[in-house]
């Protein structure tokens, strides 16, 4: 309590400061939505002016959401929130834990919501009856002798008083999660051609190489289109290798990434090459070979005594839809045939059959992120929704019934209070008194 007099403490625990900080955050956040972020100095010189660019630079406007002053505002909000909540929570806890059977009787008679009636039964019988009928409505009653009267008390939703504090705590939890991500996480990307393997990705901002600690291979990239020509799906088949051994594989899509050892690989872009990827399998021996060849070039195969080439291709937009393959194993005239991208065909030669699959070669653009804080952030989000729900839609409802002997009758004074939705509680209160009156009449 002594703390309350400390001016620094009261400054940081005031709601006025919270309103002020939230207001400043709302206003300053606009800046970064109007002035493009993370552009080069020359961009600002060109689009604004030399002097404006300098002012921007000094105030960290080009990266304002991580500037010292914006982070400072967020810190102020958090400190304010913590101090304010610590200041108030003990009081709220006291209210939750309060012994409501000790409430001064004068306070009960002064409550706004009140009703009185007289029942033709003895105090004890009435108390039992009331307890029973309240129990039937979900109210658990306690009772205690107070002077000449018997006090009954029941409450619902006392814990709902913590709702606001769950919300406030959730904001702190989200900040902690974001901080963990900032400190222990990283973001990077890599452009990985089909069939190729990498053990390194490149940091998002600095382009510095980051070793993965394992290898990732792109086996295949597929681009699916709608009939309209709009992209329907980008799909990469990724394989994870450790010491040359396959440990995990998955087809990834946008919105469906692969996670391995805390690193998540997201499908983010692709690049089409002028080259083609061909796979030739000897149907009998099962021997297969994959080659990459440029358009209208041919190559000799290493495993089969043959050569192969692409002599024609059809495209739509950036992507190849059909290719014309030329294949010759020097056993009779060369075979030529059209192949739909991604399909395979069986080629019958004089003494052998080959299965040939071919497609345009792509590189898949992977975004790679490690964010150990994300689950903390999600926990905070869950807490926030729970807390908001409790704070907004639940209330702490309390009712007291004071029973006093009057000759062979008993007079009842019922009072009640709720911390939220008072109109709703008032309705409930009076329908409850009506029911209790009729119940105790029988």
């Amino acid at each position, binding site marked *: 309590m002594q703390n309350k007099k400390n001016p620094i403490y009261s400054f940081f625990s005031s709601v*006025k400061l919270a309103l002020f900080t939230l207001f400043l955050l*709302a206003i300053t956040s606009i800046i970064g*939505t109007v002035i493009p972020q993370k552009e080069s100095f020359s961009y600002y010189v060109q689009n604004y002016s030399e002097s404006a660019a300098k002012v921007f630079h000094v105030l960290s406007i080009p990266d304002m959401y991580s500037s010292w002053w914006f982070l400072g505002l967020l810190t102020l909000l958090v400190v304010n929130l913590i101090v304010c909540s610590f200041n108030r929570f003990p009081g709220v806890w006291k209210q939750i834990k309060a012994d409501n059977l000790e409430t001064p009787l004068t306070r009960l008679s002064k409550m706004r919501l009140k009703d009185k009636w007289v029942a033709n039964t003895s105090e004890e019988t009435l108390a039992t009856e009331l307890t029973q009928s309240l129990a039937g409505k979900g109210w658990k009653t306690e009772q205690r002798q107070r002077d000449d009267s018997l006090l009954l008390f029941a409450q619902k939703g006392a814990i709902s008083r913590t709702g606001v504090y769950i919300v406030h705590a959730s904001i702190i939890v989200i900040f902690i999660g974001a901080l963990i991500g900032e400190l222990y996480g990283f973001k990077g990307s890599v452009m990985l051609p089909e069939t190729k393997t990498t053990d390194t990705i490149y940091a998002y901002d600095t382009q510095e190489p980051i070793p993965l600690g394992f290898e990732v291979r792109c086996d295949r990239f597929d681009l699916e289109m709608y009939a309209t020509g709009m992209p329907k799906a980008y799909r990469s088949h990724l394989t994870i290798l450790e010491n040359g051994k396959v440990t995990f594989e998955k087809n990834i899509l946008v919105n469906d990434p692969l996670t391995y050892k805390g690193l*998540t690989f997201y499908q983010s872009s692709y690049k089409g090459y002028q080259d083609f990827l061909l796979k030739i399998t000897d149907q009998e021996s099962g021997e297969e070979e994959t080659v990459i060849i440029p358009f209208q070039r041919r190559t000799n195969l290493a495993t089969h005594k043959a050569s192969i080439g692409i002599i024609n291709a059809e495209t739509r937009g950036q992507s190849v839809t059909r290719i014309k393959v030329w294949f010759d194993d020097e056993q009779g005239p060369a075979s030529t045939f059209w192949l739909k991208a991604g399909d395979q065909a069986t080629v019958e030669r004089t003494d052998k059959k080959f299965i040939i699959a071919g497609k345009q070669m792509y590189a898949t653009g992977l975004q790679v992120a490690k964010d150990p804080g994300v689950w903390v952030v999600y926990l905070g989000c869950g807490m926030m929704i729970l807390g908001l729900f409790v704070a907004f839609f639940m209330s702490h409802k309390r009712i007291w019934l004071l029973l006093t002997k009057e000759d062979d009758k008993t007079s009842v004074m019922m009072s009640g209070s709720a911390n939220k939705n008072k109109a709703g509680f008032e309705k409930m209160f009076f329908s409850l008194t009506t029911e209790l009156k009729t119940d105790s009449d029988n």
Partner: protein
Amino acid sequence: MDSSQLLGITTFTYLFSTILYAIIFIFKAKKLGPAATVFTIVAFLVQTAGIILRWQESYAMGYDHAPLTNMYESVVFFAWTIVGIYLLIEWKFKTRVIGAFAVPFAFLAMAYGSFASGINKEISPLIPALQSNWLIAHVVTCFIGYAAFAVAAGLGIMYLIKNMSDSRQTTNDESLLGTLPALKVIDDITHKTMVFGFLWLSVGIITGAIWANSAWGTYWSWDPKETWSLITWFVYAITLHARYTRGWGGVRIAWLAIFGFISVIFTYYGVNFLLSGLHSYGSG
């Protein structure tokens, strides 16, 4: 009947609904009340059918996605939610004049969707980034929030109009503004509507963050749309605190309800057309 016909009809039924509520308000034609309600419910059901039909049509075209993925569809859903929330308020608080201030927003949204240039009404397939259930959850929750804020702004306007007049303190039918609910009641409904909206906006921002994380590995990237939704969220957080801890009410809350909705409009519309960003609706 196809969905575009049904949704086209909806635009006019909401206009007619608006006119009915305006007549009830201006000419104190209380007798028309039930007719206005029934008519609005029917219009709402027609729109519901239109939305469901549009969903089926996209399914039949092989696209299989909820009708919530471009500006037009979002505007239609926005109007639908406004009317839904309004009908809920009418039923809960037993007052009809609010219709004259809430239903026009639904009409304006539908009219904008139907007649504004640059709005593509076609059912179009989804690009890969938008193929996510989190996106659907995100759009639905955000728009429930936005619709609640639209209704709250309507109530704020109603409060200010009533507050300016001589009949501020009356609720009898003698004067025009006397037919409006008591100031205290309007104030209370405004607050409750904003609280409702705040909860949904919070869920909307969170589901949006989860979607972004599943698509790009970043739950928050300060893109203009995200930032504006946060600004809007701050505005309503300020409003709730000012009311709850500093006892603000009446005129100030009414203004904040209007001001908050302007921020909503900017988040929803302004960002797409005035600023640049990741969100897809801007392309029409």
